[in-house]
């Protein structure tokens, strides 16, 4: 919590507490703006980045899964098709080699007729031969000169006797043409041992079949034997009869995506070993899958050079990056706009607060001065009364006495003391008046009429000094409920001050206007010499005067200020040196508002 507060304070410094003077430094706002922008950026960009990263991974994963499913599906289709093809060939051969047909097929004519029928169905059948229980060829039909062969030592012969059926790899052998063999062994009907029917099928048959089923999905599809020797011609990845380099490469765990068994499918075939490997081969990213073809000595190899969804994936990445960058740019722009707007708003409200604060401070200061002045005046008033009485007593005695030397001098002196006492009395009374708490006697007042009445008192003085008094009174201004006496005093004081300020040859304009339903405003504008800011700041302070000593008490405007406040109003003064001074008195239309 403490750390959290520490960082929050660091990032968002409170502008007003930064400075003891209350003056807010510019750099604080810059700091605030940056801090705010940073926080907002983190708040917006963190989830955005997280979502993007998660989407990226999720989509990639989905595509890979889809890719794999597709690959396995194609592989399975290829596998099933080839297996069925081979199984069909095997079935035909098995059918031809019925137990009881041994004698029949030994007849060359019968064998030829049989072979021609077979070739009609499958043109890839190259030759056919019959081998007896001793491994000697008993009948042959085909284009090659392969009569009188003995296969006793041949592995395939042993295998066919052992398993009943044999399918060979593709090889050239005696024929010097790529071919493969399907051999079936049958029990002799009338003697011990097995006879064998062996059919040679051209390798091109399988090649054509592979070429046909190789879908557009695969970049290469071919067969290899258990030793990884290529059986059908690949388009790119190896040569027929050679070992497939791709399959001989060491497979590390990271390459191997899947090494499992294809489960029994709907056709009910047994499961087959399946291996899917992804690797870089000759600078290209490839995925190859190898699956055992059940019932054959071969494996089907399927190679995909690139992800099927490479384009989709690229498009997704471009889209994601575009969306991400657009969001980032928009977020950055909006956040900077917002943070600068908030900072601006904060700066303005701070400024306003500062202004209000100084205004409050000012009026508070005036109120304090007022209270102080009242206290002083009250304290002075009592001894002043005693001086007054004592002097009076001495004066009485002197006046009642017979003439004596210096009597006149003494009478004059007493009069002088009394005059001074009276002067002090006036000051204390005005001071007390500044702070007094008398009840306000309210009545409905036509403010325009009151302004005019007041000015009448000063018309002569203005006339003598060639000062023009003009009115700009709004006749529609509403009547106000207020205390007439203090109001008159306010207007009188300000107008009187204006006359004094102008001296001679000038103009005073008094105007009235309605501010809103609850307030009216009186403006008293003169074109006198105006006041510098230093004077303006202290204008409402008691005893502050710019007039010559003895000419002003410095209480006029402080009393005016006190009166306006007491009436629930507000007084403001603006002044420009050489331009003049403007007093704006805002008063409530109803008393107590």
């Amino acid at each position: 919590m403490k750390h959290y507060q520490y960082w929050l304070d660091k990032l968002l410094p409170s502008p007003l507490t930064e400075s003891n003077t209350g003056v807010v430094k510019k750099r604080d706002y810059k700091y605030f703006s940056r801090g705010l922008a940073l926080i907002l950026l983190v708040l917006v960009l963190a989830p955005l980045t997280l979502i993007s990263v998660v989407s990226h991974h999720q989509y990639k994963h989905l595509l890979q899964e889809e890719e794999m499913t597709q690959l396995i599906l194609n592989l399975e289709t290829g596998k099933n098709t080839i297996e069925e093809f081979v199984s069909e060939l095997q079935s035909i051969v098995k059918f031809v080699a019925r137990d009881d047909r041994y004698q029949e097929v030994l007849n060359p004519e019968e064998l030829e007729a049989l072979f021609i029928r077979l070739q009609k169905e499958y043109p890839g059948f190259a030759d056919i031969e019959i081998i007896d229980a001793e491994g000697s060829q008993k009948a042959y039909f085909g284009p090659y000169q392969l009569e009188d062969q003995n296969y006793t030592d041949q592995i395939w012969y042993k295998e066919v006797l052992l398993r009943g059926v044999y399918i060979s790899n593709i090889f050239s052998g005696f024929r010097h043409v790529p071919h493969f063999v399907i051999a079936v062994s049958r029990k002799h009907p009338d003697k011990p041992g097995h006879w064998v029917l062996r059919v040679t099928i051209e390798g091109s048959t399988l090649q054509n079949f592979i070429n046909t089923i190789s879908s557009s999905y695969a970049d290469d599809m071919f067969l290899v034997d258990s030793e990884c020797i290529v059986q059908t011609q690949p388009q790119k990845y190896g040569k027929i009869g050679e070992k497939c380099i791709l399959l001989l490469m060491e497979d590390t765990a990271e390459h191997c995506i899947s090494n499992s068994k294809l489960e029994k499918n709907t056709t009910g075939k047994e499961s087959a070993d399946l291996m899917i490997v992804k690797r870089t081969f000759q600078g290209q990213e490839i995925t190859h899958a190898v699956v055992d073809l059940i019932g054959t000595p071969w494996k089907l190899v399927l190679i995909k050079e690139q992800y099927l969804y490479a384009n989709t994936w690229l498009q997704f990445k471009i889209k994601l990056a575009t969306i991400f960058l657009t969001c980032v740019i928009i977020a950055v722009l909006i956040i900077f706009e917002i943070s600068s707007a908030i900072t601006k708003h904060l700066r303005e409200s701070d400024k306003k607060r500062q202004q209000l604060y100084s205004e409050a401070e000012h009026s508070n200061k005036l109120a304090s001065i007022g209270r102080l002045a009242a206290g002083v005046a009250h304290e002075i008033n009592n001894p002043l009364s005693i001086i007054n009485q004592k002097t009076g007593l001495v004066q009485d005695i002197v006046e009642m006495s017979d003439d004596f030397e210096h009597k006149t001098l003494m009478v004059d002196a007493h009069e002088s003391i009394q005059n001074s006492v009276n002067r002090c009395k006036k000051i204390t009374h005005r001071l007390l008046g500044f702070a007094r708490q008398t009840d306000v006697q309210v009545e409905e007042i036509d403010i325009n009429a009151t302004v005019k009445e007041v000015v009448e008192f000063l018309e002569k003085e203005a006339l003598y000094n060639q000062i023009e008094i003009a009115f700009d009174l709004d006749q529609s201004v509403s009547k106000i409920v207020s205390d007439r006496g203090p109001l008159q005093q306010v207007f009188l004081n300000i107008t009187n001050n204006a006359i004094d300020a102008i001296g001679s040859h000038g103009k005073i304009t008094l105007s009235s206007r309605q501010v809103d339903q609850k307030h009216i405003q009186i403006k008293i504008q003169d074109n006198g010499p105006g006041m510098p800011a230093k004077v303006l700041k202290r204008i409402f302070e008691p005893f502050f005067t710019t007039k010559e000593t003895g000419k002003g008490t410095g209480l006029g405007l402080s009393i005016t200020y006190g009166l306006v406040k007491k009436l629930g109003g507000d007084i403001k003064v603006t002044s420009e040196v050489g331009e003049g001074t403007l007093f704006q008195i805002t008063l409530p239309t109803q008393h107590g508002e």
Partner: protein
Amino acid sequence: MITIKSKILIIDDEVEFASTLCQRLKLRGMTAFDAHSGTEGLVSLKEIHPGIVILDLKMPDMSGLTVLKKIKEYDERIEVIMLTGHGSSGSGTEAKGKGAFAYAMKPLDIKELIDTIQSADNQRRKV
């Protein structure tokens, strides 16, 4: 010519003020007494039976308005002139509302005060 027959009692906690004013009134041929607190004033009231009381509004032991009330309770015909030091016409007006004859502000102008006393005396006589 001052023709004030009523006895005058000055009640003010400022001893110097009260005694000096008392002397000045005596010099002018009036019968004047001074008391220096509200309590003392009320005691003197019963001893002297003044026709006019000059009463300070603010005193430490009791306020001028309380003393005024007690004076009026004692004898309604006694005219009371209140002395205020506040420059506050409000307190004076309030006192007038409670039966004071007039109010005068400190420091006093003796001539004005004597005129007020004269009026009060005349008022008493009318009654």
